[in-house]
């Protein structure tokens, strides 16, 4: 390694990376998403996926779900920095492995090909709540909801059955049981 001539400190050892799902409740106002996303890019944090929509039109609250990776220290910082933003109401943080939390993503697949290929594709999708949204002689549009890695593997599998276009959302999350995050 070339000896650093920088006067800045040499980076220390890096900890282990974990995947976390951060849920942020924000005021639905102009620029709020830019504030949240800008915080991530400005401080060098990762965003693997992002889902955002208004959940309470009366109180004007949006819920942002962000999948991110980082060392425990970085995850802690992400949460604390988010809480400092003025339009942020609360911040929840779940580990991907957390059994008490449901994570779901949705994907749309467009398949073009022979009937038998399309049927095979539909069969493969079956365990992920497959719904046919559009049907022509040549094509299907199928919707599935599943985990990220399941959709990843499906996109791989479906290639051979005539998959021509994919559209997918970021993950959304909710805790199991009657508890509500405060």
């Amino acid at each position, binding site marked *: 390694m070339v000896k*650093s*001539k*920088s*006067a*800045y*400190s*040499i980076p*220390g*050892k890096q900890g282990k990376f974990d995947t976390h799902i951060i849920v942020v409740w924000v005021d639905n106002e*102009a*620029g709020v998403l*830019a*504030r949240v996303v*800008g915080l991530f890019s*400005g401080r060098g944090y990762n965003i693997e996926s992002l889902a955002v929509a208004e959940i309470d039109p009366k109180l004007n609250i949006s819920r942002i779900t962000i999948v991110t990776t980082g060392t425990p*220290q970085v995850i*802690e*910082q992400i949460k*604390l*920095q988010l*809480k*400092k*933003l*003025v339009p942020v109401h609360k911040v929840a943080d779940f580990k991907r492995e957390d059994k008490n939390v449901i994570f779901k993503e949705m994907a749309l697949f467009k398949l073009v090909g022979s009937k038998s290929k399309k049927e095979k594709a539909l069969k493969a999708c079956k365990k992920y709540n497959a719904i046919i949204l559009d049907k022509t002689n040549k094509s299907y549009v199928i919707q599935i909801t599943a985990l990220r890695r399941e959709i990843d593997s499906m996109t791989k599998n479906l290639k051979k059955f005539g998959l021509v276009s994919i559209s997918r959302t970021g993950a959304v999350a909710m805790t199991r049981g009657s508890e509500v995050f405060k």
Partner: protein
Amino acid sequence: MSKLYSGAEIVFKCLEDQDVEFIFGYPGGAVLPIYDELKNFNFLKHILVRHEQGAGHAAEGYARSSGKPGVLLVTSGPGATNAVTALTDAYMDSVPLVCISGQVPTHLIGTDAFQECDTTGITRPCTKHNWLVKDVKDLEKTIHKAFEVATTGRPGPVLVDIPKDVQFQKTNYTKFKKQKKINGKVHSHFSQKDIDELIKLMSKASKPIFYTGGGVINSGPKASELLRELVNKTGFPITSTLQGLGSYPGEDSQFLGMLGMHGSYEANNAMHDCDLMINIGARFDDRITGKLDEFSPKSKKVHIDIDPSSINKNVKVDLPIIGDVAEVITSTIKTIKKVKPDFAKSNKQKISKWWEKIQKWRSVNSFDFINSDETIKPQYAVQRLYELTKNKDTYITTEVGQHQMWAAQHYKFDKPNRWMTSGGLGTMGYGLPAAVGVQVAHPKKLVIDIAGEASVLMTMQEMSTAVQYSLPIKIFILNNEYMGMVRQWQELLHDKNYSESYTAALPDFVKLAEAYGCVGIRASTPQELDDKIIEMINTDRPVIFDCRVDKQENCFPMIPSGKPHNQMLLGPKDQRENKITGKGKTLV
């Protein structure tokens, strides 16, 4: 029906209710309606700067020296972008600023109109929060909220962007009642248990140290008084960051001087070897910690801070206490009085060895330098300036570079809010406009900008502001014709390749002073220095003091990059004794 006010009037009504006395600004197309109303509001004095960056730094100087938020008023587009450096500077150093910017009319937003820019987009990462006010009905609420955000919790800059048509629109104004003392209360989340734990750690420690920062200053003058009481009650040594200077008397025997990259040998070694570090309102900046992996390896660390995100950001701590410094220290002192009234006495024996060790480090005298009869050594100049001004309750600002570190090392402060410097962002050109702001806040006091000739040229135009408002600021330039700190690093780290760090064509600062309509003084020999400084002090007009200093002098001691605290590079005296040659220096 109650009277209707225009958006421009509402801006001033809000400022009046927020007790704003001064506003630093520069007019332009998109703020003309606001400037048009200025004459109708006598509570406010407008200080016309020469560049919006100057307005920002002046507002910072005003805020830092007075404890009140600084307010600036700029136009759209270039007005706002020029203010960005100052906003970022204030963000890094936690200075409360409220920036009001004009914007093109709402119907032109997004059309690339003349002098349009995405002000809220550009300033988003350098403000605590910002607002684009698209409806005059939101204006009052927004401006008051802006003041609240800027001044509560960890202070910082905010920006309110007001389109020109909103400044003309009319609506009601309801008198605002300022809530007293919001600061602290809602942001303190510590319990008595934390304080008990702190006292337990304190009574167990045999090598303790207080490490204090700008948070003590931001907590108000009371916090500095309390800090003195706490340090006195415990008998512990104390060191301070650059921003914290003044919260504890610089000449007190328990004070080890500033720590960090150019801090004292005793402070840095004590930080490295201590077994209990009590951080009060500092943030483990990289210029303080050096190499993180080897930062104070054997100590228990306590961190008192109002900002939860400062905890564990750079350094993992054992006991975080989230709260306002003054409140935490109050509780701590109260508990000590109750549990261990004679803490200092009973503890004296335990930490006596520690003090012996510290005295040994102290005897190295790390701020020492080789003085000269022929040339003015910059350290000597600062020392003389200190000796000749210390009884005058002087306010010092600085630019950024070697002169800043020499000022921090050799000028001793014994009161808070007397020391204004750009620590986080390191903005060359901060000191002169900051001095303008300080002088506005304290018209009768002596205000000196200890400057470098390169830095000061970046915002030199504000001399014109100082002259216009008869602000007798003193610009004390340590002129070595180099960007000194750049030259020093090039010498130590880049094989003496002095790439572009020499300014081959400098103005004649004495003539420049005369051109601005102020007084120019030059000192070239150590013999004439005192007389010239006294002449400067006795001049009741703005002064540019061209102090010609040694061109080769380096700022020591220094923690070389990526090294722990206990591997400091000492000054030339020590290097000569230990025969560290030039070659050894480049090994850092």
